[in-house]
């Protein structure tokens, strides 16, 4: 009995260790490495009923152009508003803070929990959810069973953010706006990448949080890691599942630059407090004083239309001389 | 006992060998070949030292212990061939003590004795109700019917246990040291009641007792166990001699005669 359970645990461990990318189906345009593709061809009008495949691989049918939209994640809200459909929003989350006009929209997600009754009461014609269990798949199932079209978005790379915006554009018949937005985003991103492309890549540690001794950072092959790479850095990454990294591994990796994402929300975290942490003093970044507060953490970690602002903030932090 | 006419025994042990498994592996044989038969309506006292196998023999008769060798039969059929409910309709055990669950009344506990006879899914039959009433009356516990079991005194508990056993309407009643922890009045009262019940209902009784004189007054037949074997079986007056007592129990006794002529054994202390 006991030996069998032990074996079982070992199997789980090795599987967990071997896990690479977070799972999800590739978005309509297959493109896994951090790269920029060319702008798509001129946009058309969506024809309804319209069937799309979302990032979770689900086939979603939208009967008519949606005029009542519910968003279950702040990034999705930003996408909808960027496509000029802010007025169509009938439900958002209580974490939504951009743009300012969403403050008056009913909250259907409170404290991270989706209130299915409130969503049903709003009778949306399209729900934009977040993948990878940010919106629990059971909730997505329930909403789909109630008859609402649910589009689940989960971009792994910068490129896929653009693809998601195009997808939403098709869904709400805003293809022209989507194409324009994505084109300008990609152009800007392309320019940034070109500017820092040939420079030497410093080892960058992006601190997401430190709680009770556990250090959270960009997971291996995660979105954040790919952004840092695009921004001209060499990201130090943590375990892909737990996104944590052990202190000794961090010391061994020896970051040349530390970016404090958590300092944007916690004023007690400063370069001085980080330098004072025991065990951190020997890192090159600390010795050289290269610890930067990332006030723009929100746009860096929210995969929406402002993501290129995030890329720019990262690039500026990593290569201040190349990005004014 | 023997009336000259061959009467088939109600319950009989033949060549009974019973043991318990030891923690170290292996078995400890407690009964080493016991032959004991009881005919209907017999009243038998079972005597012996601690560890001689009295309780083991009783449990073998109850069907709780399975023999390593030999057999115990009821109405000619081996106990192992009887289903548990069928056995419980014929044999009742009065245990030395019973942990009574809290919250039940005496009547409710006595009604549990009807379990082997239960016919209906949720209710009791008229027959069940009558048996319970009779059991309480015969056990002299009718006035206790509505009392909570946990509030009873020692003597009252004993009456409850008797009533529970009687509710089963058994043919064979097995008592395991029923007079332990009872004061004199209750001892006399209980054994007198058993004798009366045997007369009224025709129950066969096998009682493990430790008081030799009490046993002699109680039953017309005594069986003495020593080291897992029967060493004496017969009229108490005849078999319970100072000789036997010295041999089996290892204590010297003096004998006297009561005014009725019964033998009485007096312990000799130094």
């Amino acid at each position: 009995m006991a030996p069998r359970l032990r074996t079982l645990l070992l199997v789980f461990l090795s599987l967990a260790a071997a896990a690479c990318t977070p799972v999800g189906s590739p978005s309509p345009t297959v493109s896994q490495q951090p790269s920029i593709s060319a702008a798509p061809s001129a946009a058309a009008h969506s024809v309804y009923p319209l069937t799309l495949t979302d990032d979770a691989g689900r086939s979603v049918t939208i009967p008519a152009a949606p005029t009542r939209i519910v968003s279950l994640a702040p990034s999705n809200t930003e996408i909808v508003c960027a496509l000029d459909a802010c007025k169509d929003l009938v439900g958002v989350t209580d974490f939504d803070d951009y743009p300012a006009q969403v403050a008056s929209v009913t909250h259907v997600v409170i404290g991270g929990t989706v209130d299915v009754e409130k969503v049903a009461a709003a009778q949306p014609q399209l729900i934009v959810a977040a993948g990878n269990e940010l919106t629990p798949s059971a909730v997505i199932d329930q909403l789909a069973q109630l008859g609402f079209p649910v589009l689940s978005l989960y971009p792994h790379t910068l490129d896929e953010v653009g693809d998601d915006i195009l997808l939403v554009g098709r869904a709400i018949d805003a293809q022209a706006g989507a194409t324009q937005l994505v084109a300008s985003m990609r152009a800007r991103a392309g320019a940034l990448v070109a500017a820092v492309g040939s420079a030497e890549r410093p080892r960058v540690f992006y601190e997401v949080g430190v709680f009770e001794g556990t250090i959270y950072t960009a997971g291996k092959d995660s979105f954040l890691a790919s952004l840092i790479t695009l921004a001209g850095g060499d990201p130090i990454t943590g375990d892909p599942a737990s996104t944590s990294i052990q202190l000794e591994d961090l010391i061994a990796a020896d970051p040349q630059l530390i970016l404090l994402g958590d300092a944007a929300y916690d004023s007690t975290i400063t370069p001085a407090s980080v330098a004072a942490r025991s065990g951190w003093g020997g890192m090159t970044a600390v010795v050289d004083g290269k610890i930067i507060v990332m006030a723009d953490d929100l746009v860096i970690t929210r995969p929406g239309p402002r993501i290129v602002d995030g890329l720019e903030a990262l690039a500026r932090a990593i290569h201040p001389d190349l990005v004014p | 006992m023997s009336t000259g006419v061959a009467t088939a025994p109600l319950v009989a042990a033949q060549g009974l060998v019973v043991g318990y498994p030891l923690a170290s592996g292996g078995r400890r044989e407690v009964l080493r070949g016991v032959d004991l038969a009881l005919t209907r309506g017999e009243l038998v006292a079972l005597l012996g030292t601690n560890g001689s196998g009295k309780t083991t023999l009783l449990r073998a008769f109850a069907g709780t212990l399975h023999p390593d060798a030999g057999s115990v039969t009821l109405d000619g059929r081996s106990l192992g061939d009887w289903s548990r409910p069928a056995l419980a309709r014929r044999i009742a055990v009065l245990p030395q003590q019973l942990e009574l669950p809290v919250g039940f009344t005496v009547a409710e506990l006595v009604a549990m004795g009807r379990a082997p006879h239960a016919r209906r899914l949720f209710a009791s039959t008229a027959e069940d109700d009558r048996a319970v009433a009779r059991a309480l009356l015969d056990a002299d516990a009718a006035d206790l019917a509505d009392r909570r079991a946990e509030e009873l005194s020692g003597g009252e508990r004993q009456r409850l246990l008797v009533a529970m056993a009687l509710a089963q309407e058994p043919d064979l009643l097995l008592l395991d040291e029923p007079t332990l922890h009872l004061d004199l009045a209750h001892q006399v009262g209980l054994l007198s009641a058993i004798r009366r019940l045997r007369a009224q209902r025709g129950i066969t009784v096998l009682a493990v007792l430790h008081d030799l004189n009490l046993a002699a007054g109680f039953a017309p037949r005594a069986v003495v166990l020593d080291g897992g074997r029967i060493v004496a079986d017969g009229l108490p007056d005849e078999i319970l001699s100072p000789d036997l007592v010295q041999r089996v129990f290892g204590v010297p006794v003096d004998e006297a005669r009561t005014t009725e002529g019964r033998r009485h054994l007096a312990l000799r202390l130094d």
Partner: protein
Amino acid sequence: MRAAAAATTGRLAVGPSLTRTAIVLGGGAIVLVVAMVVAVAVGSVGVSIGDTAAILGHRLLGLPIPRTWSVGAEQIIFDVRLPRVLTAMLVGGGLALAGTVFQALLRNPMADPYIIGTAAGASLGAIAGLMAPILVPALAIGAGSSWLGLGVVQVLAFAGGLGTVLLVYAVSRTNGRVPVVTLLLTGYAVSSVLAAGVALLMFFSGQRLGAIFGWLMGSLANARWLNLAFAAPLLAISGALLVIRWRRLNLLLLGDEPASHLGLDVEREKLALTMLATLATSTVVAISGTIGFVGLVVPHLLRLAIGPDHRLLLPASILFGASLLALADLGARLAGGVPVGIVTALIGAPFFIYLLRRSRDLSRGAVA
């Protein structure tokens, strides 16, 4: 008084009188209906009582009522709240029944339905199911995959719960007997090992930690008609088979040997009771996670109110357990959609302390 009556009729009617049975069970049924109506009528979105009644009448009873309510209201009442309330009732009734059975079977007043390993096994199964897409990318079963209409999580939870108890039972067997103390200790040991496995998986869970926590606390948010279709027949069968065993449970309270002398095949009955109660518990856990305190507190409360006789106790536990959880879930919904297990813990724990202090007999054990 009773003796006199018995003397005249020669009969002594024992057990709860018809009036008492009617009051307890009838009362329980009424409470249940009221709880159900209230739980369906109230929620985070206001739907008028009139509309609620009309919708239920129209959809459930097929009454030809002209539609004066909105589509949203109908969806909320019939597709969101009703299955959830029915699930709460099924789960609450099942847990309370299983708890009553285990407390008698194990002769332990601290026993709950999960005590011999069901929770630990079901948790490990469910969390493995929740984590499968992360751990084994090839198993990237897109959300909404199902087997027989049930999710991977439900199937693994059910199998985990049942399998663990079978394991614990087999390990506890010595010389063809399963002593109650051994069963308890083995259950504790096996649960500890499996709990370690659960903790390990939780560490690697990343994004899914919230979902895992919700499952462990127990939640009715995933209630759906499909799960009810799976659970209802299983609970009906195990419930019925347990309720008719009231006599045997009463006998077990006397102890193994006395029960045997009263005609019970003790080992067989213990196995049957364990398996039936575990079937009910595993079914419930599969669709709602490990909701605590209902299975522990409801039997105690009822025993204090109506006594330990299982004839009334078993059906009463089903009725009152169902009502309790339906109302607790209403509280959970109004508190912002927290897992209902949090509500039952918040109410149950202080209540239990109160019970302990109030009833001095409890220290001796309502089950001796």
